[in-house]
């Protein structure tokens, strides 16, 4: 971490999706509480990991933070820009300064555009290189920066492998010189032998360009490797946030503990001896989440009050946030 100044500040962010039915006059028949009141900071130059199981709302957070979904409540501040109210010039600045990398290297590139048009789009939209030739030069530079050959500018996405397409997507995200990049499961769709390439590239770029990442993933091993701090999400809310070594070695929340114990370990000796906390049942639906602590239906240590009172998001130890009634704060803190 270069400074202690947060680049991104998220406060009580909520995103609810109404489920609508009807022909012309729609009525709301239910609400998916995809993200329900999360707060955290991301410091300049760090990588914050956001982990959770599918449907927990982690991708929705990333998109809502960038203003791609209008938030239901709360505030997001990125580099001094209030995302929820930004308009006009402020919004355009945000679109330059915050970018996104996607999971699916096939769906994230327009199949009808050349690599040059794809990577050059942010330059064109923000008029960063008005001169056509300069723009092409810059696109080549960007491709070389992500480890692709500048000769490939006139090719179409279908001519590249998954890993190479992911590099093209990264080059596009870098084109407008952003400070902050939301990486939405950037390696989940790649072959194992390619994942390390892309992770190394992201790390190199961070060092070289001073980038700040929100790294959304479900692969806990990779998250530990790449992230400085990790936030764990369950059913629309954060349950724990701490520096990654602290979180992996001393998890406080029972969900984090269960999640970590379920991670497959590539070592047969460890794998056979390990005590697994196997959670019973499935994640409840975010349409009607359980009252009180949302995890209480599957929690191995749940108490009666867990079903009634929503646990407070608090620091149980310095810089170790948790939302659980049953975790005691450290003595003397």
């Amino acid at each position, binding site marked *: 971490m270069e400074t202690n100044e947060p680049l991104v500040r998220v406060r009580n962010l909520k995103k609810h999706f109404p489920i609508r039915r009807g022909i012309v006059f729609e009525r709301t028949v239910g609400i998916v509480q995809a993200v329900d009141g999360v707060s955290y900071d991301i410091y300049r130059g760090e990588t914050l990991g956001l982990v959770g*199981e*599918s449907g927990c709302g982690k991708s929705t957070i990333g998109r809502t933070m960038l203003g791609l979904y209008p938030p239901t409540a709360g505030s997001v501040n990125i580099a001094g820009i209030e995302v929820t109210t930004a308009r006009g010039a402020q919004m355009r600045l945000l679109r330059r300064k915050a970018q996104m990398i996607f999971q699916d290297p096939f769906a994230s590139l327009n199949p009808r555009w050349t690599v040059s048009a794809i990577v050059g789009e942010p330059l064109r939209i923000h008029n960063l290189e008005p001169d056509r030739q300069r723009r092409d030069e810059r696109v080549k530079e960007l491709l070389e920066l992500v480890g692709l050959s500048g000769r490939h500018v006139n090719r179409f996405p279908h001519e590249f*492998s*998954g*890993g*190479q397409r992911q590099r093209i997507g990264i080059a596009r995200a870098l084109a407008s010189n952003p400070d902050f990049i939301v990486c939405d499961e950037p390696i989940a769709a790649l*072959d*194992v*032998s*390619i*994942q*390390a*390439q892309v*992770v*190394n590239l992201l*790390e190199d770029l961070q060092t070289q360009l001073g980038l700040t990442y929100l790294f959304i993933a*479900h692969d*806990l*091993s*990779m998250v*530990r*490797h*790449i992230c400085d701090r990790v936030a764990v999400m369950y059913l629309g809310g954060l349950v724990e946030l701490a520096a*990654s*070594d602290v979180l*992996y070695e001393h998890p406080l929340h029972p969900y984090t503990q*269960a*999640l*970590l*114990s*379920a*991670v*497959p*370990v*590539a*070592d*047969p*000796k*460890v*794998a*056979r001896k*390990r005590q*697994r906390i*196997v*959670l019973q049942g*499935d*994640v409840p639906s975010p349409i009607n989440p359980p009252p009180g602590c949302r995890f209480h239906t599957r929690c191995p240590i749940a108490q009666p009050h867990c079903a009634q009172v929503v646990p407070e998001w608090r620091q149980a130890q310095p810089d170790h946030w948790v939302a659980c009634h049953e975790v005691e704060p450290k003595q003397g803190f």
Partner: protein
Amino acid sequence: MKQDPALLNVHDLQVRFHTPEGTIYAVNGISFHIAEGEAVAVVGESGSGKSVCMMSLLGLIPIPPGEIVSGTAVFLERDLLKLPEKELELVRGRDIGMIFQDPMTSLNPVLTLGRQLTEALVRHFNLTAEEARNRAIELLQLVGIPDAASRLGNYPHQFSGGMRQRVMIAMMLACNPKLLIADEPTTALDVTIQAQIVELVQEIRAKLRMSLIWITHDLGVVAGLADRVLVMYGGTIVEEADVESLYERPQHPYTLALLAALPRVHQRRQSRLKAIPGAPPHLILELTGCPFAPRCEFVRDRCWRERPLLQPVSPTQKTACFVNPHTGEERA
């Protein structure tokens, strides 16, 4: 290696696909066996031929464009590759059970679960409707579906991903197969659900003494699950070893590199992951050398010209490589 009687013995299997873009050399002469009661993991990336290989044994690849060029697959003294479709269907339903990555594709969305389960039972075992229903409930309980009796009336979409996978396992168990082939059954599931399914399969295997072939790309899942591992790359088996030896001392440069590229959840951050350069091969030309040669740090001249064969290097381990990746020297 254990000398149990082999349940399945595959020899020199070669599979190709003839597409408009050219011939894909998907499986290039692989041989392996599965002993009775053994759990074997087949590990490989996309395009390594791991699924095609198993599916072709069961007659589940479309022919054409597919073509089984050569090979034998002896299962219970019969060559699966030569069985007529009718008999193979029986083998698939009764002796070999299968579960897939996406259970939804194997369930009929417009029929209730009970109907799908009991129909199979009535057909294969001549049970009465009442008996079949009781057996179905028993099976659902066996795979840990709570409130089994009432869930028989539900449709597949009313189950979550993990529950559907359990249902698939129950359907597969209905016929009490000798061999279970699981093709990436947990890839689409979350880690906590994956742990549940792995546990379930382990339990059932111990209870029913089934052999297991678990196809996956995840070296992590395999470690706690398999007795023996086949590592596939470019349509060939590059390494075959019992699970301890494989993780302790991998003998093929690909296995070694793959394990080195994995971040470990129990280790503090290393400086950098050891990435494997390049991309997996496309297999549009016939294999004349080692498929891993273009990405291999130990590559020799002969690797491009000659195909290394799977050779034993220790009592528990075989590898298809001219070089010992630990010493960097050519093997004798």
